[in-house]
Structure formats: C-alpha cells, structure tokens
C-alpha cells in the first residue's frame, strides 16, 4: 500500500512536470523570430499560400488558443502533423524512437558491463597503477566531445581496420526483420533471422561504444567512490575477521551495498544518453530520434520539434521513476523506514 502511494505521488509529479515542459517547448517554438510558413514554403511563396499555411497549422489563432488546441491533441494522442514529412508526428516518433532506444540500451549495457568492474578494480587497487589508468580513462570519458569520438571510432573501426560498418542500422542488402518491437536485434531474434541479427549487431558496435563512453565514465567514477566508502566500513572488517575470502568480501559484501548509488546514477545517465544520441546518430547516419530532431529543428518544423522534446523530456523522469522502484526493491531500509 505504501508502495502504491509512493508510485502515485511520483506519477502525479511527472504529469505536472510534463505540463510545464509542454508549455515551455510550445512557447519556444511559437515565439520565434523565424517564420515557419516561409521556412516550409520557401521565399517565393505568395501571400495567399502563406495565409493558407498559417490557417492549416492554426498559426493565425491567438497563442493561448493554439496551446489549448495542442494540449487537447496530446491528451488524445495527437501530436500534430509534421511540416517536413507531412506525416503525423506520432507516427514519425514511433518509427524513429525504437532505433534510438536500441542504441541507448546497448550503450547503457556496455557502460554497466565495463563501468562497474572498472570501478571495483580501481577501488581495490586504490592509489596504484590500475587505479590511475582507470581514473584517467574515466576523466577522458567525461571530457571527450562525443561527435569527435564518433569520427575517430569510424576512422579506426571502419576506414583503417574495416571490421565494422561506418553507419546505418543494417546492411543495405540484408532485409530488416519484420517489425514487432522496432528493435532490430530483438525483432531478428523473434523472426529467427540470423543474417539480420548479425548485421544489426555489427552495426551497433561503433555507435554504442561511442555513445556509451560517457556513461561508462560516470558509472566507473560512481562505483569506485562508493566501493571505497563501503570498503572502509566496520562490517568489512568483521567480514575479514571472520576469515572470509577476499573475493567473497568484495563481491558479496561490498559490491552489493556499493551498487545502490550506482543504480541511481545509471538512471540519471539515461537522460544524457538521449542528448548524446543526437550527435551520435548524426555521425553514424542512425535513423533515430536524434537525427529526426536535428532535421526538424533545421527546417523549423515546430510540431515535430515539440513532439521530440516532449518525448525526450518524459524519458528522464520515467527513468528516474524506474530507478526509484529498483531502489525500493534493492534497499529494504526504504521499504520499512
């Protein structure tokens, strides 16, 4: 019961934030100096064409009325029509979001698989060479421009070594798997299509490594510092005094407790993955939300920009909610406290 109340409160909070987000994005895309009608129709459009365009997108109505129409649309699952693609924004998002999700999940998986062991290793060897190397790599991960890293990775992995494809989600001669989830890896597994599976996995390697470096660095730093904190606790000394093996002490007693702050940071990183995805997708011609966002912003396609920002802004609070639920389940003190 207590859990339900907690969940409900959080969901109401998210709804409130989303209203704010929609107002702000709406304000940004409607109080702009550039004219979307001219951007869409070109400089040679006649006054009648511009007036017709403004009427079609309701740009001639008062701002408040435009917002109410828009908000009402959102509640009915209608995000408007994209000026650039001439399709419903919701359909465009549904097409491009799975690509971003697949890339971000893979990047996050890589970050956890690399970051947690690296952090533990670094903490155990505190002050010695492995610690120094890990800390330097983590520092670089937090300071490297992701679009530059992407170029370097393509230069090495594609041009120099030729091991991996340089862009896209799947080889042009491999038909994509039938859409179930929109995640190529999952869909090709469902369809039992090994060609599609291999190709989509290969295509994921370079962009996921690029996108994942930053979150790997964050997870490494967090794991290291919470491991150091836990390793200094009294119960660690007790475990040693009991004669437990070092492996058991580190993995069973220390890591389990040290992981709690790491879980929080993993949730927080998810929001930054989306920002990173914009640049990563541009470099790797990855047909996801980031590329869609960039193309929409360039062409002042305000319904599309609004749609992307709304979707992106809900991911972060949702990821935090998931973290809180995991927390609740991981740390009995929260449940009973």
């Amino acid at each position, binding site marked *: 019961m207590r859990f339900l109340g907690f969940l409900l409160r959080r969901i109401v909070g998210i709804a409130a934030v989303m209203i*704010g987000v929609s107002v702000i994005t709406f304000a940004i*895309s409607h109080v702009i100096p550039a004219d979307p009608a001219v951007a869409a129709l070109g400089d040679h459009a006649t006054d009648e064409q511009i007036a017709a365009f403004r009427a079609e997108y309701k740009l001639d109505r008062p701002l408040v009325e435009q917002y109410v129409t828009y908000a009402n649309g959102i509640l009915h699952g209608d995000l408007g029509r994209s000026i650039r693609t001439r399709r419903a924004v919701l359909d465009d998002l549904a097409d491009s979001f799975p690509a971003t999700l697949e890339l971000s999940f893979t990047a996050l998986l890589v970050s956890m698989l690399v970051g947690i062991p690296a952090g533990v290793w670094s903490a155990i060897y505190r002050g010695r060479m492995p610690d120094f190397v890990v800390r330097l790599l983590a520092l670089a991960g*937090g*300071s490297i421009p992701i679009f*530059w890293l992407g170029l370097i990775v393509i230069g090495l992995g594609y*041009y120099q070594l030729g091991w991996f494809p340089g862009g896209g989600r799947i080889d042009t001669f491999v038909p994509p798997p039938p859409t179930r989830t929109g995640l190529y890896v999952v869909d090709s597994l469902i369809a039992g299509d090994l060609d599609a599976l291999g190709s989509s996995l290969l295509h994921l390697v370079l962009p996921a490594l690029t996108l994942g470096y930053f979150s790997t660095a964050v997870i490494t730093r967090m794991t290291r510092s919470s491991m150091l904190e836990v390793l200094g606790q009294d119960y660690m000394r007790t475990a040693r005094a009991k004669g437990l093996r070092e492996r058991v002490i580190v993995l069973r007693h220390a890591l389990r407790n040290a992981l709690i702050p790491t879980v929080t940071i993993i949730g927080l990183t998810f929001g930054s993955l989306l920002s990173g995805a914009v640049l990563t997708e541009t470099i790797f011609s990855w047909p996801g939300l980031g590329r869609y966002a960039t193309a929409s912003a360039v062409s002042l396609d305000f319904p599309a920009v609004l749609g992307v920002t709304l979707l992106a802004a809900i991911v972060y609070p949702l990821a935090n909610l998931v973290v809180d639920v995991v927390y609740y389940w991981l740390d009995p003190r929260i449940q009973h406290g």
Partner: protein
Amino acid sequence: MVRRSPILREPLNIIAIALIAAFAVCALLAPVLAPYDPLAQTLSARLEPPSAAHWLGTDSLGRDIASRLIYGARISLVIGVVVVALAGIFGTFVGLVAGYAGGLADEALMRLTEVFLAFPPLILAMAIAGALGPSLTNAIIAIAAVTWAVYARLARGQLLSLRRREYVEAARSIGVSPARILARHLLPNAIAPLLIQASFDMGAAIIAAAGLSFIGFGAQPPTPEWGVMISEGRNFISTQPWLSLFPGLAILFAVGSFNVLGDGLRDVLDPRLRRAN
C-alpha cells in the same frame, strides 16, 4: 617553507591549472601567437600534413590549423565564461529569491527548475538555437537557458541551510535589510558549491557549444570555432585525419582541465561533498 595551497598538492590539478592558463594565454594573445591569419586561404597549400611551416597542417582551404586552434581558444573560453556568467547569475538569483521568499513563490520556482532539468540539454538547446536562428550568440543563449536551473537549486539549498544560522538571525534581529543579509551574509557563504559547479559548467558549455556548431546550430564557417573545425574535417577523416584530430584534442584537454579543476575545488572548498578518492 612556503605553504602550498591545498589544491596544488595534487599533480593532476597542477597540470589542469597550467593547461587552463595556457588556453587563456592563447585566447588573450591570439594575434601575437598565431603564425598565420586564421581565415587566410592558401589554395596552393591545401590539406598539408603537419610540417615546420604549418605545425598542425592545413585544412581543405589551405588555412593554418594551428592558427585557427589558437583563435578558437578565444571563442571557446568566451563561450564558457559567458554561459557560466549568464546561467550562474540568473540561476543563483532565482534560487536565492525562492529560498528567501519561501511558500508559494518557492514552490512555483522550484517546479520551474524541475521542468528545465527534465529536458535533455542538447535537445532543448537545439530547439532554442533552431528557433532563434543558428549563430554563436544564440547557441550561447540556448546553453545558458539549459544550465541555469542547477544553480537555482544549489543556491536555494545553500540558503535554506544557512538562513537558520545564528549570525543570520543576529543580523535580522538588529534590523539589517533582507537584501543586505542576502548579499553580505548569505551569498558569500553559499558560494563554494556554486564555484565548483561553475568549473564543471565551463567544460560542459565548451562541449555543448562545439556540439551545436558541429550539427550547424552554433558558430558558422569560416569562424575558427573548434566544433566547426571538426565538422569541416569530417569528410577527410580517412585521408587527412589531422583536420579533425587537433581541434578534438583541444576540446578534450580544455574540458578535461575544467573537470579536474572542478574535482579539485570540491575537495578543497567543500569537505562535506568530498568524494572518497
């Protein structure tokens, strides 16, 4: 024996401060230090690899990359300083007002910061920069607009923990005005976490501006901005990698230095926040 400032005890901090100083010197003395005009095209010397005449080579229009990097330091440092100043001042002001006023105003302002923190920064910055029109100034405004909320929360948090202190109560009891209490007693004591955040945000702003420029929403060619330079070298990554390599390293070192400085400041200024390392 001369006592060294605690931040200078860590070798990495010394390297970072030296690098920041070097970038600052490049920024200030760019016209003196740069061997060539950063915009001068020498088409007979296109795409030359690093040599004695051109230490870091030339780009596709025969411009000297080293000179462009040096001038780029000027642009990047200005971006960092202006973003941090705009976001820091505005955010701190909002946070102090919220914390001091309390009640409904506090509640409303804090919900507003939550909304801004929910946006993935680059997507919001892109929407703002796209709406205002692509230029360096608009990129700076966009980045400041996605950065201020953190300062509001930090300043408010500090204020709430400080306002109950005895010296504040004492000032209030002798009739010191709220504005004066805020400026003379609360702000100076709340400044440490803001400074730490500012150091991290210098780096974050430089990276964000370069990213916006890279996708076309920030500085425009032929401006010698580091992100623009990486973008211009993009098509030569397999044949003339130095075009993108050097500006990327410049960003890495500049941002890395500010991040190290931020860590160092945190360790020195705020023992409570000190991480276990």
